[in-house]
């Protein structure tokens, strides 16, 4: 019969820790002090990966440009807006 090492984390320990993880992240808790992480390689890797993803996301700078058609459409719409406005103003003026 094999005896279970009391120090070894169980699946329940991992589930409990991962349930608390969003709050630990959001409060900026010092995860180095988490007892579970001292014993659990798997949850340590999870925390490291989630931190890494959050860090990398901040480096996702804008890289995509819209096609030139977008500006052409904007310019046309502006001209149309201006035409309507000047039409409205002139009709408003002519009404007075």
């Amino acid at each position, binding site marked *: 019969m094999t005896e279970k090492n009391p120090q070894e984390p169980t699946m329940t320990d991992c589930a409990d820790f991962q349930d608390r993880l969003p709050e630990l992240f959001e409060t900026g808790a010092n995860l180095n002090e988490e007892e579970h992480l001292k014993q659990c390689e798997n949850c340590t890797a999870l925390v490291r990966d989630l931190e890494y993803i959050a860090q990398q996301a901040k480096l996702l700078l804008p890289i995509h440009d819209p096609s030139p058609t977008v500006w052409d*459409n904007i310019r046309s719409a502006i001209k149309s807006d201006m035409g309507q406005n000047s039409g409205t103003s002139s009709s408003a003026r002519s009404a007075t």
Partner: protein
Amino acid sequence: MSAGQTESKPAQHHLRRNPPIVGEAEAIAAAQAGDEKAFETLYALHKRRVYSLCLRMLGNVAAAEDLTQDAFLQLYRKIGTFRGDSAFSTWLHRLAVNVVLMHLRKKGLPQISLEEALEPSQDDGPRKDIGARDLRLSGSIDRVTLERAVENLPPGYRLVFVLHDVEGYEHNEIADMLSCSIGNSKSQLHKARMKLRDLLRTGQRKEAAV
């Protein structure tokens, strides 16, 4: 540094994202006075960021271009109301986010509340990582891989992830924009990061198998 601690410096994050742009103030003033050329300058200065934001939120080039167009048309109509209380780029990007959210509400989200829409189906959601011994991500993903993984997130997760982790909005701002609770925003962000990890690890496994 924890993933949570990264949000403790939103002001710095916004400043890095919205650095002062030479000539922008003059272009704003001129555009407010009706100078079309100045408006074109503002478009040139901000089109990339507005379009990238739309594209990341929507995951669709045609829709992103349409909404970039809508956002700049709204800018043209509203630029007179910009008073400089915040950075122009912050103001413009908030305007663009609202245009995208309005579009999403019109398109598919109105039948159910946003709170529900933000919760992907069981199949889409991330799994707990218990007992798995696997590849570690750290140091191994490039920008293109991450961009692609973000595109593949379920829409609700993608929205919160892009707004918080990429654009630097805080949970209270996101909750306000999405009409959901702050707790919901936090929970969705965590699930989004977990799901991204799943997607990235799956990609790594596929690469390793080739």
